[in-house]
């Protein structure tokens, strides 16, 4: 799941890097797509954090396994 956060952030940065190249009327699309990937990254990070917190509260669960997904 940490990998997924990294991939989404990378995609957001890669899309944002297109901003100077894009023609002015398409810059809004570039920003929108980068923002979507940022939202994905934040949601995935929050999901990951909640899983880690939940797993740390229940001793029988395997937090490490979930963290590696």
């Amino acid at each position, binding site marked *: 799941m940490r990998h997924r956060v990294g991939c989404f952030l990378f995609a957001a940065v890669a899309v944002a890097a*297109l901003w100077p190249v894009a*023609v002015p009327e398409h810059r809004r699309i570039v920003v929108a797509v980068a923002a979507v990937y940022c939202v*994905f990254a934040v949601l995935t990070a929050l999901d990951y954090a909640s899983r880690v917190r939940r797993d740390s509260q229940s001793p029988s669960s395997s937090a490490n396994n979930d963290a590696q997904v």
Partner: protein
Amino acid sequence: MPMGRTGADSPTRFRLVPTNDHFFVLFRSAAANAAECGGAVARFGPDVLISSGLRKIGVFIVLSPLIGLALAMVFMIVVLWTFHRVNQVDRLNRLFRRGQLLSAAAFSLGHGGNDAQKTMGVILAVLIGSGRLPAVADVPLWVVLAAHTAIALGTLSGGWRIVKTLGSRITRLQPVGGMAAETAAAVTLFAASASGIPVSTTHTISGAIVGVGTVHRMSAVRWSVAARVLWAWILTIPGAFLVAAVCSLLVQAVT
């Protein structure tokens, strides 16, 4: 003096700019555009290329698979959330198989509305450039029918290897995933066509399939296959550019 024509009967807009009495179609994507650019550069030098057209194409070569990927993830999550309490997997699969017929039809429509226009655009540009049609001419019916026939025959005779790569080698698609990927790609293509932006159907559906795979888990996607597909896309552009440049120089030498 630059003259422009916006294709009235096609969702994908073509910008025809006469330079030295020749017309160049810009505003299209990937290999087709690279090939045309290669031919134009070989013949008249790099000054004939229109940077705004190239920038539009270049940006959306990167954006279209990422938009398809994001939309496919959203669709897939929505479908999974909607049906996660339903236990009858067989019934659900039947439902999604039927839904896939609709999504595949929409995707095909998107393909025709965007990708297929490029074929007609090249023929139209040649006809206008050679003086057989006026600069403001619409696409003749015979060009439409010839392009449709060629695309249909190509689809009919296409290899199973591409079907296999997209359907089972990037990630193993179930009916629900296929429906989500096709719907996401169709929406991307419709939006691109409505905005006059040429994008590649293949790039879009490949991104959408990766998006469907990553919803399950990152390892559900065979990243080595996805990387090979990506490299093929990257290499296609300079390859088409070079082949077109060589062909243009050969034709010029002969005539």
